[in-house]
């Protein structure tokens, strides 16, 4: 078997789950970053952007520690489910959410911020609440940013390695993702197998991004009002 389909489906599942969660979780964070007037906002922005520059092993290490049975988060999870978060799929999801946070939030926030403020003002003068304004005006005009954010999150999670290794280890069917599979094969000098898997991942990610950016450009681009 050239490609380890089990780890491939696991990776796909992880990427889809993380993208979906970040699509929801990222919206309020991005909204706050785009519209808050708080003077210390830049601190939050810096924290959100941290995973871009932080070595994945560093992030993964702290996630592993935080999820451990002696920490509040880990204890809470154990009391809730009966087992630890580390070395489980759920643990992977949490680590990946943190790792991909900026790739979702930054495009979201950028597209929210680029919505003409006069449109928000117009919506308010027409009697709309901030929530209605968000769903009727801000969201529809930010579709390109939302798609970009989700696509980046998806592709980023597909290729994730360091965080997964730290948090999840290498359990087939549970935490063994494609990139870890590739690493394993290289370790075992199975270059042909590693190449097939790597090439498959490369083509897949490239296709996803091409389709998304292509659609984004053609259909969703919203021009200025004359």
């Amino acid at each position, binding site marked *: 078997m050239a490609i380890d389909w089990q780890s491939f489906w696991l990776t796909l599942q992880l990427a889809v789950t993380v993208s979906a969660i970040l699509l929801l979780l990222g919206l309020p964070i991005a909204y706050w970053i785009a519209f808050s007037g708080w003077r210390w906002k830049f601190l939050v922005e810096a924290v959100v952007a941290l995973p871009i520059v932080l070595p994945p092993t560093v992030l993964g290490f702290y996630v592993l520690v935080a999820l451990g049975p002696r920490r509040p988060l880990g204890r809470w999870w154990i009391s809730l489910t009966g087992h630890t978060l580390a070395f489980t799929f759920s643990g992977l999801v949490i680590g990946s959410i943190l790792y991909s946070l900026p790739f979702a939030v930054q495009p979201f926030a950028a597209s929210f911020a680029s919505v003409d403020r006069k*449109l928000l003002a117009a919506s308010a*003068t027409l009697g709309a609440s901030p929530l209605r304004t968000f769903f009727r*005006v801000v969201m529809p005009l930010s579709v390109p940013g939302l798609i970009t954010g989700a696509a980046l999150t998806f592709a980023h999670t597909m290729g994730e390695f360091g965080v997964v290794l730290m948090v999840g280890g290498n359990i087939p069917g549970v935490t063994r993702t494609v990139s870890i599979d590739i690493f394993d094969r290289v370790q075992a000098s199975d270059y042909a197998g590693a190449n097939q898997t790597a090439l498959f991942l490369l083509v897949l990610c490239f296709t996803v991004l091409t389709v998304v950016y292509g659609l984004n450009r053609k259909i969703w681009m*919203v021009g200025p009002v004359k």
Partner: protein
Amino acid sequence: MNDVRTVDSAAAKAAARLRPHADRPAGPVLAGRFRRQQSPQFSLEVEFQAAPGFTILFGPSGAGKTTLLDCVAGLSRPNSGHIAIDNKVLFDAAKSTDLPVSKRRVGYVFQNLALFPHLTVVQNVAYGLAHLSRAERQQRATAILQQFRIADLASRNARDISGGESQRVALARTLVTDPAMLLLDEPLAALDTATKATIVDDLRAWNEAHRIPILYVTHSRDEVFALGERVIVLHAGRIVAQGTPHEVIEAPRQETVAQLIGFENVFDVTVEAVHPERGTMLCRVAGDGGPVVLETPLVRADLGATLRVGIRAGDILLATSLPLGLSARNVILGCIKSVQQRDVIVSTRVDCGVEMEVHLTLAARDSLQLAAGREVWLVIKTHSCHLMKR
């Protein structure tokens, strides 16, 4: 700096009485007295009342007109003061009342119109009717689209319609919500004169039926006269004059007003001769030995006194040869320094010892073949020279 021209106040009052709504009292009154520190350098501090009908906000850019509208709408928050429409308080700093924008029932048409680009025309118009049933929403939206003669645009995308159409849609979208007051921030600035006129007619007609306060921001003198029952002149964040257009524009009381109200040409003059029997006097521009003498209306001033004269660029005629048989008393030879097209007017600067700005139509420029370097005669009526105290 009082106006020394004999103000014809009786005529002004008569004119005000002739205006259709000047004396009609019914309807809510918007009252504001507030202060907003916009930046360390600029503060807006105003006290005004706007009765039902048009109140024009007039002033140069940066005078605080839009800030005033934003404060009334609730988009900007004053630092202190009070805003109310009749006895409904919109803002009161002392009582910490600050009604949210969406609860103020304020219709606001922005300078850039702010149509929702992702919605169709009818969706834009129905946006403010979310509280109604679908059927009623549809019915009200259709009715106002017909009233504003844009029913055929209903299913078009808001970003695919022309400037004039967008203006109508923006007005319809605001008016359909039945606002308690209307704020218009230069809504017609970008339109050609003909389109502007028909929209102004539509607005007037609508205003006949819905007597609410309308604050209308404009730079245009023509719009002041076309719409204005009352004018508030704003300068550097302060109200420098208010009254009927006739009072504010024809009888400037302060230098700032004079400059605002379209006296593009303002000069210091020295009174050189007084002719009480003719009701005129002669004033030399730029003091003793100055190059130009103007015949002006008579005001109470001594020989040798220094006054200021304001002449509107649109009140000066240009002739390419010495005109004869004219009633105008001031005919001055000069040389064109520059000809510049601004929108639909041509601004010409003529050097006749002092530099004067003259506004012409495009057709006039073309038929006279005006260009820099050309010799021309400036023709200025005596009564186009407005004298003020220095």
